[in-house]
């Protein structure tokens, strides 16, 4: 590198640093105070990226969904099948499966069944309503069970106006930690449980599960738009028609704030 280039390099570096500090100065109050995808190990050392146990030989990630559905009128979950029927459960389960299948178009994620065919366990069912949250009566960690669960009938105190769903991710900061009935953690930063809780229709929001579950993450949308199989397009159209039947004041479009957590 000659003298001129070096001078240019130093100038560029200084400029970049100034820009970075300016961004830090102006952007930091809006951004959050800490990077939350990392866990500082209890034993000290560098922050570890949070992730599931994906070591070779590890058991597939357990996953299930709760068949406990809100019994509300109008229905909280709009399906083509009649409410409360086995066909409705099958339809919801098919939708969940399709939501996972969207990730096939995203490289580098564990949820991509093509890249990691054995990473995910079979999608199971549970009839437990509070499979995603602690037992509100006994206050025990029933929801922390090491099974990644999707629940539709949740009454968590965390739900306030406008919050339709959230994901709670339990992360250990050391090996051999036991939480609830989840298996002991293997390493610091391990996600021992990640559950998605969806609110009941407390706020009279008319949504279809199809739309909620097919809302792709920012990462998937920006890299390659998910491809919907034809039957799902038809189902989505039907869901839109059903949503159109909702009172005008309750029509809301769910929005995913940012990307999903990639295990």
């Amino acid at each position: 590198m000659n003298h001129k280039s070096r001078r240019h390099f130093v100038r560029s570096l200084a400029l970049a640093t100034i820009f970075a500090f300016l961004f830090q100065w102006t952007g930091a109050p809006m951004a959050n105070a800490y990077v939350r995808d990392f866990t500082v190990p209890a034993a000290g050392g560098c922050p570890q990226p949070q992730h599931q146990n994906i070591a070779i030989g590890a058991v597939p990630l357990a996953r299930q969904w709760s068949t406990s559905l809100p019994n509300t009128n109008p229905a909280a979950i709009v399906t083509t099948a009649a409410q409360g029927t086995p066909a409705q459960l099958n339809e919801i389960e098919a939708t969940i499966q399709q939501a996972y299948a969207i990730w096939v178009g995203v490289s580098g994620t564990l949820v991509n069944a093509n890249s990691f065919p054995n990473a995910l366990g079979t999608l199971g069912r549970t009839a437990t309503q509070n499979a995603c949250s602690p037992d509100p009566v006994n206050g025990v960690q029933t929801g922390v069970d090491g099974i990644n669960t999707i629940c539709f009938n949740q009454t968590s105190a965390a739900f306030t106006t406008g919050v339709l769903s959230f994901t709670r991710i339990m992360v250990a900061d050391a090996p051999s930690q036991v939480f609830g009935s989840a298996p002991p953690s293997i390493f610091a930063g391990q996600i021992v449980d990640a559950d998605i809780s969806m609110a009941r229709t407390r706020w009279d929001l008319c949504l279809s599960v199809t739309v909620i579950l097919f809302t792709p993450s920012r990462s998937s949308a920006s890299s390659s738009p998910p491809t919907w199989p034809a039957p799902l397009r038809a189902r989505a159209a039907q869901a839109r028609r059903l949503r159109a039947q909702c009172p005008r004041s309750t029509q809301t479009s769910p929005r995913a704030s940012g990307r999903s957590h990639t295990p």
Partner: protein
Amino acid sequence: MKPALIDLTSISFVIAFALLLSPLAQSTTLAPLSLAQLTSSAANVVHAECTGNQAVWRDGEIWTVTSFRVLENWKGNSPEEIQVWMIGGRAGAVTSYVPGAPRFRIGEETVLFLEPASSRSFGGVLSITAWSEGTFRIHRDPRTYEMRVTQDTAITPNFDPSSRTFRETGIRNWPLAKLKARVIAAESSRRRTP
């Protein structure tokens, strides 16, 4: 050619920093609420300063209880000191991480739309209406020192299912006085409406 490469290096530095500092709101689904809807839903709207954070276990769940000193009441009549409960936090060896749940730094000034937590067992503790939608961070304009606000949701692109695109919505860089005027006007309008 080298200078061009170097310029790219500097640009990549900036982008890398921008990405590094981007907020990590994820996998939380919110119903889009207008400012009028937020005002209507909230029991209290306050301009407050964070004074502390504490993680507690409650009903088998980790919560972060953030204390605020109320500087000004815009709606309702909050006491001088309030505590706001948000799900998630770090307690002992475990971190309960809930993407999209607002967190606050000591000394940070915010405008918060608050409502009682939905569970009766929580006995009326306060939580934030629509989480990041009901959270407005205050910063000062570097030139004029004017206080300005940005809604938490304004810094994350949100997915619009109808157009299947991500768009940045929310209030960004408004003067604090403007937000206050809009909130008060929305509340007045709501009261007038039978």
